[in-house]
């Protein structure tokens, strides 16, 4: 893989994002929701890193924190050579054009009172000083890039279908020629046949503009299609990170194994040969994660040590990481 030689475009180290819980008469700080608890990862230029996990595992928070939409609790984020973790929000504006976001709900992320030209043109107004003709030309260029008809520029979001709205959101994200885009569940609100259209569009744009994606999704089959490497999150931590083929062909962490076995098999002939691991119970609350391994309450393979000691992330093979006590012992033996 060429990734190892290339420098990472985005590198996140020890990222923590805690949301404080206030309670009582004086709104005292009584605890934290540890949405993201000490994660590190690198995203290389031109690649797509898939980030998967169940609702509430903190995957969207990672995306938002990476773009510094939050003031992070701890850790450092370096994007394109700039350490953005300590810059205050006002000064961050200068860096915003390089990093953009595509949101899940194309209905909620577009202002219903603005027409398409204004939505797509807003980043241009904010960050560039273009003449009216230049601005319009750029808007048309962007609409062409995402496969929307130029004549739609004066229409309003409600006049579009879900897939078209998502295209408007993508055009807005592309407006300032970003290098890095966080795609936060960009297809989960869309119909299956439309999902494929949007995923193909994202791939085309990546090739055309050399974009780097952090693709957040709970849909493992789409991540399998689009991602080069995949990180699996559980309760605020990354439990496994590997290249797509490694992760899908031979998942190491028990949670990854369970997650993959839960994906519905669209082939009834293969249905019976599949091993189903059905996890018991729900994800624990991130305000009081279990002692030891976060996954120990639901893990079918948990042993004694899992309930006491938190597993460290170890590199099993070059570029392949997992955090599980069971893997520690096997590597020691080997």
């Amino acid at each position: 893989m060429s990734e190892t030689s290339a420098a990472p475009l985005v590198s996140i180290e020890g990222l923590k994002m805690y949301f404080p819980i206030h309670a009582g008469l004086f709104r005292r700080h009584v605890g934290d929701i540890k949405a993201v608890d000490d994660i590190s990862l690198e995203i290389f230029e031109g690649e797509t890193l898939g980030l998967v996990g169940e609702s509430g595992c903190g995957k969207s928070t990672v995306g938002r924190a990476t773009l510094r939409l939050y003031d992070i609790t701890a850790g450092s984020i370096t994007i394109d050579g700039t350490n953005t973790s300590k810059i205050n929000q006002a000064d961050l504006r200068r860096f915003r054009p390089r990093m953009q976001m595509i949101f899940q709900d194309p209905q909620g992320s577009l202002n219903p009172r603005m027409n398409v030209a204004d939505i797509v043109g807003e980043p241009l107004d904010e960050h560039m000083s273009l003449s009216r003709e230049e601005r319009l030309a750029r808007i048309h260029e962007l609409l062409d890039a995402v496969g929307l008809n130029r004549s739609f520029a004066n229409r309003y979001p409600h006049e579009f279908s879900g897939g078209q709205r998502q295209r408007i959101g993508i055009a807005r994200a592309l407006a300032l020629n970003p290098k890095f885009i966080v795609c936060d569940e960009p297809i989960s609100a869309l119909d299956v046949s439309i999902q494929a259209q949007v995923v193909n569009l994202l791939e085309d744009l990546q090739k055309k503009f050399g974009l780097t994606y952090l693709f957040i999704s709970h849909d493992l089959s789409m991540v399998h299609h689009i991602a080069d490497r995949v990180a699996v999150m559980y309760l605020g931590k990354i439990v496994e990170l590997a290249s797509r083929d490694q992760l899908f062909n031979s998942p190491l962490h028990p949670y990854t194994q369970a997650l993959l076995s839960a994906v519905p098999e669209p082939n009834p002939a293969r249905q019976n040969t599949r091993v189903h691991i059905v996890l018991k119970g729900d994800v624990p609350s991130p305000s009081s994660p279990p002692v030891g391994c976060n996954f120990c309450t639901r893990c079918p393979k948990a042993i004694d040590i899992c309930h006491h000691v938190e597993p460290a992330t170890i590199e099993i093979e070059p570029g392949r990481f997992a955090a599980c006590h069971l893997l520690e012992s096997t590597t020691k033996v080997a």
Partner: protein
Amino acid sequence: MPENRPAVLDVKNIETVFNTRRGTIHAVNSVSFSLQPGELLGVVGESGSGKSVTMMSLIGLLPTPPARVTGGYVKFDNIDLLKADAQQLRAVRGAKIGFIFQDPMTSLNPVLTIGFQLMEPLRTHMGMKKAAAKKRAVELLDLVGMPDAERRLSDFPHQFSGGMRQRVVIAMALACDPKVLIADEPTTALDVTIQAQILELVKDLRRKLGMAIIWITHDLGVVAGIADRVMVMYGGQIVEQAPVRELFENPQHPYTRALIETVPDIGAERPERLRTVEGQPSILYARPSACSFRTRCAHAFERCNRENPALLVTEKAHHVACFWDSATGEPRNV
């Protein structure tokens, strides 16, 4: 299994329209099907294909106006549900026909305890006294795998996780031993691992209780795993219907084929690009006089613009509504 036993539910030529400001929308166009005792019928299609509206039409759950069921009959328990008066319908709904909706939060009342909500159908439909109803409610929660059922009766919906809420909704639908259970995308709002739990639960409940189930979904993977027979809908019509294995091994309608192809399969080789169905479903302002799928169909020819194909039996138990013969790749001579 589809044999010659009397059907529990027999639907013939049902038609539903919505009166809107822009005109009348023909949402369901002459849909006929029957449901065998103990059978699980999967209903698949995109949003707007009419799958939910069809099922809601059956038991008068659509708001009238704007919706109006203009034709057909629904035979259940020797009465025509479409002609039944409000009182007769009330005796059927929630008792003999149970309904599970997509989002468990909106189908539960947030200000009532789940105990009260579970006991309500038992007291109104079965005439149970409070103590008996409570005992039955605990049994039902046990049945759907709710831990510590008795204590949780006094909890409110917000105190449950999404998966647990859906279990409560399933328990409510099962309360009066329905003959038919209509499940409208019951796992779409849930995470994959929770979805896997619910699917296992439904398989298990079917074995124990033996009711017939109509399972509406847009996820072919889910259908492949649980259905006996699958009905594919497009433009308010059934375009294909077959036993589940037959449908996946030998899909005949171009729409079904496209649906199967657009879902990325993590068990198979990763394609360079995802197959898509270009365009979007059209809105039916008139009863379709031609094939509704023709504008998105790769095999459409002149006849598809002129006539609306009827469902015809191609093989044993395999029905398809298409003028193009997938076996020969030529137009059909019928």
